[in-house]
């Protein structure tokens, strides 16, 4: 969240994150390269440029796999949330690694000849009717273009101008990109090097991504089903959503009423507030956040809103929807119709004086 735009709002956390990312990617590439050099030496040596190209490609594939695992892992355990916090840095680093892979591959396989390298890439192999000879490079090129669009819009400037929903949709293209990368690998490296181990690694990576998404999705559905069971009360549209003791002081609880949007219930200073569960930034689950310095703090990227009116503290201007809330006895009740973003709703005191 920002009141102005700079390329990167560096702080110590981001520096440490980026150093770890750079270290991990460098170690991957160096390990791949050195082992490749040691395996075949002398007149059997693989060309350095081929080794480098393979190292960069393998690194980009594994890094993209990790990126796709971070989301569901963070849904399954809050321990992984710090990896999610600056994930866009890992995304940009992955794109740059994939770009270098493409530059080396296009440079050496398509350069130094009678055709422009890009023309050679697009024109030379047109065996679209043959699985064995299919120009797998085109899958990689399409994936790279998607990653380029994502990397170049990985900034709050684009988030604001595209809108949270539009930006999110755009960045969901990472899934088609991953599919294209898998096809690129399957019809390229896996056909070229008939190694069952390589096939196993790729299948394991794809399975891990799929499995984590399914498990995280099923857990979300179970949670929604559990909180959806609360029976609505009669009159004025108040709905009983949970007990006051179900919400820890300084924390939130997510409830789901019917098929409506999820609502986040917060307890702060012995008062209960209710807001939408969806953060304005990237749709993070606010109800899984904390109250820090009196503000609801999103667990994904730390965006903050005041619980009493859903408005970000100055100088920020973001607003989220609030809900009318009251405490009756030991129960929390809300009217599940969202109020316009930024609408002030007095928090309900837990001492037995309900507000509505």
């Amino acid at each position, binding site marked *: 969240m920002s009141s102005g735009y700079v390329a990167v709002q560096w702080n110590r956390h981001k520096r440490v994150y980026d150093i770890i990312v750079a270290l991990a990617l460098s*170690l991957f590439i160096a390990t791949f390269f050195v082992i490749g050099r040691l395996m075949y030496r002398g007149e059997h040596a693989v060309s350095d440029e081929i*080794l480098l190209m393979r190292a960069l490609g393998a690194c980009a594939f594994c890094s993209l796999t990790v990126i796709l695992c971070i989301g569901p892992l963070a849904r399954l355990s809050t321990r992984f949330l710090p990896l999610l916090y600056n994930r866009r840095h890992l995304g940009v680093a992955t794109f740059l690694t994939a770009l270098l892979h493409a530059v080396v591959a296009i440079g050496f396989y398509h350069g130094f000849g009678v055709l422009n390298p890009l023309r050679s890439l697009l024109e030379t192999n047109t065996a679209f009717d043959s699985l*064995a000879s299919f120009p797998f490079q085109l899958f990689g090129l399409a994936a790279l273009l998607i990653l380029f669009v994502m990397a170049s819009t990985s900034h709050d400037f684009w988030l604001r101008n595209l809108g949270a929903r539009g930006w999110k949709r755009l960045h969901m293209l990472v899934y088609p990109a991953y599919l294209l990368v898998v096809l690129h690998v399957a019809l390229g490296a896996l056909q070229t090097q008939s190694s069952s181990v390589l096939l196993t690694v790729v299948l394991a990576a794809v399975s891990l991504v799929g499995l984590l998404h399914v498990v995280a999705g099923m857990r979300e559905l179970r949670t929604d089903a559990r909180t959806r069971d609360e029976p609505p009360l009669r009159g004025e549209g108040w709905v009983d959503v949970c007990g006051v003791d179900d919400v820890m002081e300084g924390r939130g609880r997510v409830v789901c009423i019917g098929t409506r949007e999820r609502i986040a219930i917060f307890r702060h200073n012995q008062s209960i507030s209710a807001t939408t569960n969806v953060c304005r930034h990237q749709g993070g689950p606010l109800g899984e956040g904390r109250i820090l310095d009196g503000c609801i703090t999103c667990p994904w990227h730390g965006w903050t809103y005041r619980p009493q009116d859903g408005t970000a503290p100055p100088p920020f201007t973001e607003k989220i929807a609030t809900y009318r809330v009251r405490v009756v006895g030991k129960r929390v009740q809300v009217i599940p119709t969202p109020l316009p973003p930024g609408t002030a709703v007095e928090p309900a005191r837990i001492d037995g004086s309900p507000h509505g």
Partner: protein
Amino acid sequence: MDSTAPMPPAADSASDQFYCGYRPVAPSLRMTLAVIVIVLIAAFVATAAVMSRQHGDPGTGVWHFGTPREFVGRIVCEPYPMLLIVPKERGDVEALLLVEMGKFGGGQRALPRDGQWARVTGYLLERDGRRMIELLDGDAAFAAVDRSAVAGADRIEAPPEVHEVADQEMFGEIVDTKCYLGAMKPGDGKAHKECATLCIRGGIPPTFITRDNFGKRTYYLITDPAGRAVDERILPFVADPVKILGTVERRGSLLLFRIHVTTIQRM
């Protein structure tokens, strides 16, 4: 506050593992994160090691780039530019194919010198006893010499012995000779298809590689039925596993495969 209502436990800032990117990290979370990062990096590097061990052996091709050598013999341009020499260690005539730097054949500079005796300088590529010269840039690549300065000139001038075998169908792969002899390793297979196609399009001679049941490779220089360079209709089949019907001809040290491009079938 309702004194009868027990206060639920508050989030203890010391033990709470909530992370916020602009606030100090709780000590317990710091330890958790250290473990996660170490495990992730270890898994990442281990994956790199496992994947890198899957390279196939690219073969024995060697490109002596950076160490130019001189060869003296006669330039011949049919079916492809080559220098005929008689190496001391062999005693018979050897054909050294001539190519330029990059993905270009040696025709442009060799054709005006067709039939001449010359000292040719360049970088040697060699594999399985097959050799090729990548010509130096500029005037240093060629120097005319007198016939008397060439060892084995008589044998070079003598018409080569030609042994023609009946038409036969063979399975193998069309490669560009330069990469396969060591310019790019590996210089065959699907990943190398576009590179090989570009090389052959640029005039580098195509070679048909077959393997017997023991993996032994045989190199056939591909020509058209008349024994001349093949045309671009061969390009779509480069680097694919193919079956070709053609005539094998041994011409001196060269093994030629005279083919009709229309007989090539992708397997």
